[in-house]
């Protein structure tokens, strides 16, 4: 029963994908939309069933289908593990997935390749489910690479634009750099423990008496590189802002709520491993904090509405990694969930705005949309308040916990994270003010067509806004349902170490005040002074560096891409020719020797006879005298 249901859970989106791929055109738009959405909704329904079941039984469900890959010292089976963690992840993957499918019906309605879009989305959900429920690292790796593929396909959905294709390619390749790290980590774990199965790995690590710490750390570090690639951490984060080339629902689903959290999922899944390697943990924490800060600073000056959200995502992911690095996995998971709600809401809201403005993404050409699009405005405002950490919204609880943990472990990290969250509040409200307040700065024609989006778009927004408001309830300070729920996975709770005391309340207050200061600054600058960001060419000073994202893309281009291309040209034109002429040279030498040798055979009978006689002498003397 469970096996069958798990298969339904997994293959419903895949079936949707197959139907949309093969019959999408014949079915027509509305049918393919319905099938696409329904297939994910079915998964969601099954997930709820499993969720209810596991909430009662507290028993993980393990399903082994068949042997997949065989290595000399172990076998990798194709199996699934449905436990608290994976079901939790499934809940928001399929839940938000369904909402975004619903949203896409309206958003993508005018696109001629509607069925392809839904097919890709379904395929993504399928791979994401595989990633989450795989019972070992290699099955997870199928999903891991699969979601990368879908991300590639969806970023490059409008394939006629080569810039989008470049962005898609970049995303795939950067992900693959991380994937190599992940594979190396898998190899090392394979050598060390002869298994890739989570459960066996856990017992093996727990039961091992003399662990090779060097290799263990290497494995953890390699896995972390994999997580960096997928979750857009320094140094592999540059693909995520570019990935905004894809349709907005894609950005919401893949590049905000689900796929980018895969790295966090993996590290949480292997918490028993990372707990043993404090060095790697501190690397993770530092990388997370730095990413949070760097991305936030870049986000301060971006003018593309989706770019701001993208950097905000990177920044938030950095905060999650900070929590992971500090061993507070449950806090990271909590933030993943709340972030999924409010960030999906923000992206979908921005999509709604872009939809209304017929594809305009530059905030300098927006403004004053409050009246025209009230629902979008209110939902986005709620989400912005949540992300800024305003009390009683979900983001407040999760972010605050991260800051608390940081404060308890390392004050500098806490400072960095706090600065990042103040910046977050600032740029989010900069976005809000520029988009929805003041006067409309676009063309007259756009102004004329301003309208609230249809209900299929606003419904998901409302649902997500509600979730962004109340999402914090799952883990209230003091009494955390989430922590209890996750106990089988995470036996040591980092956040449980501290109780609410004066320090904690003070920290909360600092965070809240910080958030409000950020909002206030944005209000002062963009409402009171009524500033509009300058044109690209007029940006100067440090903000130019920020606007150009610290020139990281250019630096990578100069360090990696250009040298490889130059090397390729060098190999192609010089080395290949040299090797080729070496072989031809060998032929030429042979030819030359033969040409010279030909001269001996000049046809002179006299010479022939002389050689003949000498040869005769040689042979005769060899035969008779050589004994």
């Amino acid at each position: 029963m469970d096996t069958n249901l798990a298969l339904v859970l997994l293959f419903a989106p895949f079936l949707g994908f197959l139907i949309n791929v093969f019959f999408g055109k014949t079915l027509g738009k509305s049918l393919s939309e319905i099938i696409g959405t329904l297939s994910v909704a079915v998964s969601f329904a099954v997930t709820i069933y499993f969720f209810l079941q596991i909430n009662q039984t507290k028993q993980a469900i393990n399903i082994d289908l068949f042997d997949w890959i065989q290595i000399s010292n172990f076998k990798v089976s194709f199996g699934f593990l449905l436990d608290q963690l994976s079901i939790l992840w499934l809940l928001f993957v399929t839940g938000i997935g369904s909402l975004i499918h619903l949203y896409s019906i309206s958003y993508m309605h005018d696109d001629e390749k509607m069925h392809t879009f839904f097919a890709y989305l379904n395929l993504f959900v399928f791979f994401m489910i595989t990633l989450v429920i795989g019972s070992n690292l290699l099955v997870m790796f199928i999903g891991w690479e699969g979601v990368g593929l879908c991300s590639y396909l969806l970023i490059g959905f409008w394939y006629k634009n080569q810039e989008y294709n470049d962005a898609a390619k970049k995303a795939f390749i950067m992900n693959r750099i991380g994937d190599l790290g992940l594979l190396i980590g898998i190899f090392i774990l394979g050598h060390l423990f002869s298994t890739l199965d989570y459960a066996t790995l856990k017992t093996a690590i727990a039961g091992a008496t003399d662990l090779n710490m060097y290799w263990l750390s290497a494995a953890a570090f390699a896995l972390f590189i994999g997580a960096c690639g997928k979750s857009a951490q320094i140094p592999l984060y540059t693909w995520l802002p570019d990935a905004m080339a894809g349709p907005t629902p894609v950005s919401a689903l893949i590049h905000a709520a689900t796929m980018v959290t895969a790295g966090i999922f993996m590290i949480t899944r292997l918490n028993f491993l990372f707990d043993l390697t404090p060095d790697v943990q501190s690397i993770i924490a530092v990388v997370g904090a730095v990413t949070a800060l760097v991305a936030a600073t870049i986000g301060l000056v971006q003018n593309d509405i989706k770019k701001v959200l993208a950097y905000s995502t990177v920044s938030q992911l950095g905060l999650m990694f900070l929590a992971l690095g500090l061993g507070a996995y449950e806090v990271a998971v909590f933030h993943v969930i709340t972030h999924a709600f409010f960030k999906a809401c923000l992206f979908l809201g921005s999509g709604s705005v872009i939809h209304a403005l017929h594809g305009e993404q530059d905030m300098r050409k927006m403004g004053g949309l409050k009246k025209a699009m009230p629902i979008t405005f209110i939902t986005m405002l709620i989400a912005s308040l949540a992300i800024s950490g305003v009390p009683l919204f979900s983001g407040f609880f999760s972010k605050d916990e991260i800051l608390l943990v940081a404060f308890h472990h390392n004050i500098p990290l806490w400072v960095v994270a706090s600065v990042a969250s103040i910046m977050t509040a600032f740029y989010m409200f900069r976005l809000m003010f520029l988009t929805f307040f003041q006067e409309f700065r676009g063309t007259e024609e756009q102004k004329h067509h301003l309208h609230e989006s249809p209900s299929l778009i606003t419904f998901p927004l409302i649902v997500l806004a509600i979730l962004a408001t109340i999402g914090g309830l799952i883990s209230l300070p003091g009494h955390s349902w989430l922590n209890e729920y996750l106990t089988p996975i995470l036996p040591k709770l980092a956040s449980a170490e501290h109780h609410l005391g004066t320090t904690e309340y003070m920290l909360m207050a600092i965070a809240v005040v910080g958030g409000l200061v950020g909002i206030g600054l944005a209000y002062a600058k963009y409402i009171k002074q009524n500033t509009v960001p300058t044109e690209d060419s007029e940006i100067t000073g440090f903000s130019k560096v920020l606007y150009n994202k610290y020139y990281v893309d250019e630096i990578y281009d100069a360090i990696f891409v250009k040298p490889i291309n130059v090397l390729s040209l060098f190999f192609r034109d010089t080395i290949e020719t040299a090797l080729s002429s070496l072989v031809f040279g060998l032929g030429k030498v042979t030819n030359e020797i033969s040409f010279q040798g030909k001269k001996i055979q000049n046809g002179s009978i006299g010479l022939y006879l002389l050689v003949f006689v000498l040869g005769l002498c040689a042979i005769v003397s060899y035969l008779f005298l050589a004994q």
Partner: protein
Amino acid sequence: MNNILNQIGIENYIFLSVILFCIGVFGVLYRRNAIIVFMSIEIMLNAVNLLFVAFSTYHQDAQGQVFVFFSMAVAAAEVAVGLAILVSIFRNLGSITIDNLKNLKG
């Protein structure tokens, strides 16, 4: 009947024919005139024939002489054909110096 070799010694015949053969070889290598080369070849043939006959006597066996008989027949045929070839070469090239015969060149 006494064997004549008792008085001369087979080794003398061997030396004689060896030297005669070498003279033939020398002639072939030394001269460029195809006719003289031919003659030198005849000298070599005769050196061998002489040795055959000497050993025929040594072994008191007629087979050596029979062989000489055949080799003479072959030599006659060879000379006839060879000279005919020389004549036609001479007709075509106007000379029979073997240095001119370089058609064997590859």
